[in-house]
């Protein structure tokens, strides 16, 4: 019950202080708009590159807000009060990260679907891609949160985030992009990729709260 209280507060804070979903969505759209100019506008090129570009842009959109995830809590004393709230730090971390995902990242699969269609993917493939994005985002935000927790308060935190989160995101990138690349709704390989994305995401969501909690406790000492 108390985890829900923290979850609801963090959702409110994400909207009032962080502008809610505006920043990641705008960043996502900007990358998706600029990418075809760099790759080349040939329909065949865009079709082939589309799923990969969209997943990569989603990774960038998740990463861009990451640095702020715990920095404020570390510097304004909130982390200490959370640490003494009587809830395990892993529960606090999970509630906070999930709240951030819900409040700020929900437009990404929708935009991803639109972008898939615009890049020339069949509607079915674009829909599968959007589904796999929706499945990948929880895993991505937890990875990013681990990097953010390790770097909170450190100088050049952004560097640490890029170095830690990007390599760990590889499996999610591979599975999520493949889901949009092969076939349509009926394609067994595409469905398998969506399921693999779900599995990876769930695995990360299950183990990372403990790692994030350990990193945050290290910050307090």
């Amino acid at each position, binding site marked *: 019950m108390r985890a829900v209280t923290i979850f609801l507060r963090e959702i409110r804070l994400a909207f009032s202080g962080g502008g809610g979903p505006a920043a990641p969505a705008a960043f996502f759209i900007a990358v998706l708009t600029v990418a075809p100019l760099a790759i080349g506008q040939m329909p065949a090129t865009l079709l082939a590159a589309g799923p990969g570009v969209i997943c990569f842009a989603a990774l960038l959109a998740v990463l861009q807000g990451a640095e702020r995830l715990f920095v404020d809590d570390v510097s304004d*004393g909130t982390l200490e009060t959370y640490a003494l709230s*009587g809830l395990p730090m892993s529960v606090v971390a999970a509630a906070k990260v999930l709240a951030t995902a819900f409040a700020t990242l929900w437009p990404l699969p929708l935009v991803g679907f639109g972008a898939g269609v615009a890049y020339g993917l069949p509607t079915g493939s674009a829909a599968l891609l959007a589904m796999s994005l929706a499945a990948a985002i929880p895993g991505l935000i937890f990875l990013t949160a681990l990097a953010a927790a390790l770097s909170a308060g450190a100088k050049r935190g952004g560097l640490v985030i890029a170095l830690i989160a990007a390599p760990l995101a590889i499996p999610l990138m591979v599975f999520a992009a493949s889901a949009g690349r092969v076939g349509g709704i009926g394609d067994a390989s595409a469905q398998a990729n969506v399921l693999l994305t779900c599995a990876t995401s769930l695995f990360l969501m299950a183990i990372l709260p403990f790692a994030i909690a350990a990193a945050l406790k290290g910050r307090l000492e």
Partner: protein
Amino acid sequence: MRPVSQSALTRTSGRVKSRAMTLPEFSPTSLNVTDLSLERGNIPLISGLNLTANSGDAVVLLGRNGVGKTTLLRALAGVLRPRAGSLFYSDVPAETAASKCCAFLGHEDALKPDETPRQSLAFWSRLSNSPLAVDEALDEMGLRALADRPSRRLSQGQKRRTALARIAVQNRPVWLLDEPAAPLDGDGRARLSNIVSSHLKRGGLVVAATHQALDWPNARTQELARCAL
């Protein structure tokens, strides 16, 4: 004391008395610090400290800048591991007990710039199942008129009052306060003294680090000396 704080004192004390009667007492809590040594970044700060306190006690930590008052409070809050010695709350090590029994006020007020004092207190009150109503806590620190103003537009002293009201709604027997009165005016200090004494009457325990005269009745002082190298 100045007349303004005097009147505030008498004005609030009536309400405080009624609150002390309505709020349930804490179960007896003791603090036992034995032969404690602390360091910060490999610099030894406190060595061989012994300290005992029980329900109803207020301990005021005094000492020069850099002597280790904040470090000691953070160790009491269980977030900093001591180099040697032990910290117990009612025979449970501080590392595990602190998150159940301590309310901690550090240098920072743990306020979010876009949250109003009412929202912030409502959150902490829900999180702690507090028997103290948010409005009452706001009144006790004289924050009624500021309750719906985002905390980025509060002064330093007003933020401190909000943080102290948060400590009150957290409903924990042990209060660990780091420089609680530093930005407070006379009225604020009188109100702080009021909530502390009603907390002690409930069977609470307060440890505060300060450079200011707090004028708390029955407070013990603990002088921290520079660690001999």
